[in-house]
């Protein structure tokens, strides 16, 4: 029996991980005629939840209606929903294989857990709103649209970097 090494393995080289990601994206184009996504699946989930709790309210909201479809089948039977379930599974699988599963909070040494979690929540909320305004997130817009030379996606991508660098200084205590 070999003695199991339980320490986390190093991450892959960025270029090879990116190459793999690019091939997955290419496969999605070839197989489905669409790219990858993430935020859309969560919107569908929110719409489905709103529909389950307050059907009349959700039905009259044009935003939800767009994600609920025509009612002929469950809105959760959606391509992006299944894709994102796969992302959870794939991330978990990779984490297990590389001994990286760990209940922890990602933060710098100069911030305690509670404020870090508050910032994570705030950031998540901003991303949810931003992704809906821009019709996509880093997956659906930047990656997918970037590879298709989509005009809006490139404008979006440059602004993501601009926005992040502009604010980075003010939250430096969180990370460094």
């Amino acid at each position: 029996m070999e003695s199991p090494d339980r320490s986390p393995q190093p991450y892959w080289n960025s270029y090879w991980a990116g190459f793999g990601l690019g091939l997955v994206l290419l496969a999605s184009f070839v197989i489905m005629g669409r790219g990858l996504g993430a935020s859309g699946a969560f919107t569908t989930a929110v719409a489905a939840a709103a529909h389950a709790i307050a059907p009349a309210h959700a039905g009259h909201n044009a935003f939800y209606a767009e994600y609920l479809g025509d009612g002929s089948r469950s809105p959760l039977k959606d391509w992006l929903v299944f894709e994102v379930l796969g992302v959870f599974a794939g991330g978990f699988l990779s984490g297990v294989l590389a001994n990286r599963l760990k209940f922890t909070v990602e933060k710098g040494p100069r911030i305690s857990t509670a404020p870090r979690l508050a910032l994570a929540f705030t950031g998540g909320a901003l991303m949810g709103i931003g992704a809906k305004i821009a019709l996509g997130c880093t997956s659906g817009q930047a990656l997918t649209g970037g590879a298709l030379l989509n005009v809006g996606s490139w404008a979006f991508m440059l602004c993501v970097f601009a926005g992040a660098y502009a604010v980075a200084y003010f939250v430096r205590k969180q990370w460094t």
Partner: protein
Amino acid sequence: MNAPFFKYGLFGDETSLILAFVIGIAFGFFLERAGFGSGRKLAAQFYFTDLSVLKVMFTAIITAMTGVYLLARIGFLDLSLVYLVPTFVVPQIVGGLLLGVGFVIGGYCPGTSCVSAATGRIDGMVYLAGMLAGLFGFAEVYPSLETFLHSTSLGQITLPALFHVSYGLLVFAVVLMALAAFAAAEWAEKKTAGKLPDPNGSLTALPWRLTPVRRLAFGLAALGLAAALAGSPYRGARVTVDTRDLALRASHDATSLAPATLADWIIQGRNDFALVDVRSETDFASYHIPTAQNLPLASLNADFAPRNQTIILCSDDGTQAAQAWFLLQAQGFRSVYLLSGGLRAWRDQVLFPKPSAEAPAAAFEKQAQVAKYFGGAPQTTGASAAPAPALPKLAPPVLAAGPAGATQPPPKKKKEGC
């Protein structure tokens, strides 16, 4: 074999969901391998200490971009069938800035937060909860934002089309730009983090050997150069037609749509089809069905709509529409329908319906409502000698005031984008 497989009908919706899961697994796997389950590693991008985000993202982009170009150029992949998110300039700039701010505050983007939560990061889970809350709040204020969200629309447009440069040349330019950015990133990492790059994983570190990573970079640059020299990746206007296949499709009944059905679709406000009027501009100007766009037969080209869009063609008696039907089928459009009987039938059946002996009165009542909606008038007497009724003026109530029973929210096509 033709790609995209799904859009050429190689498999159905159910199978596509299984494939979605498989593609998702691969996506999540590579994200985690890259280290993107860690908020610290992601955020380091914005302090110049670890520029993995830039490297991974742009390697993925140029890999997929050159791959798409080559597969489209050799005729395997029909690029016009790959979904392109429409461009709305200002909303995408504003949304991008918000996302960037959220990225550095939250530490993740939506995709990477899934991987982070799946590997036990509590901040990743909280981030996801925040995102759901944000989406919920957004839905509640959506009606007041709708005008802004649909402003500065450019439609589905690529950079080569916007700047009038060749697609291949732009592919090459983006590859070179990305490689230059990688070199700059490695330089910045050395400056700020002071770490010596591993020569095997770096493009710029000494000694100058042809490491696998450099081979990858050279390979992508060579493919980009090939793209710059080769032609357009779109399928040209010169097409080969499978006449037997086309004849079979033409003989199929399902290629036409009854005027009454079209009327229902318009009243319901459905936006998952394009109604195309192929008559001349003057005929179009004198009367057309609400929501129709005018593309005279002579100027019909393949670029007005994506190949998988449902298109309904109409002309006076249907002859010109049928000719357009063949043109579009030959160019690879999948779901093109004819308004059966053309505008003549539209006038007789929708605008000025007559009661018939066999149809019940209730059915005629509904027809009459539809007719009024489109500005027509039901013909109550059987007086066939009466002069032909005049066509309605061109401003029928489009969506605001539908007849009773047509006010439920329109069944919309689900979004395809992220």
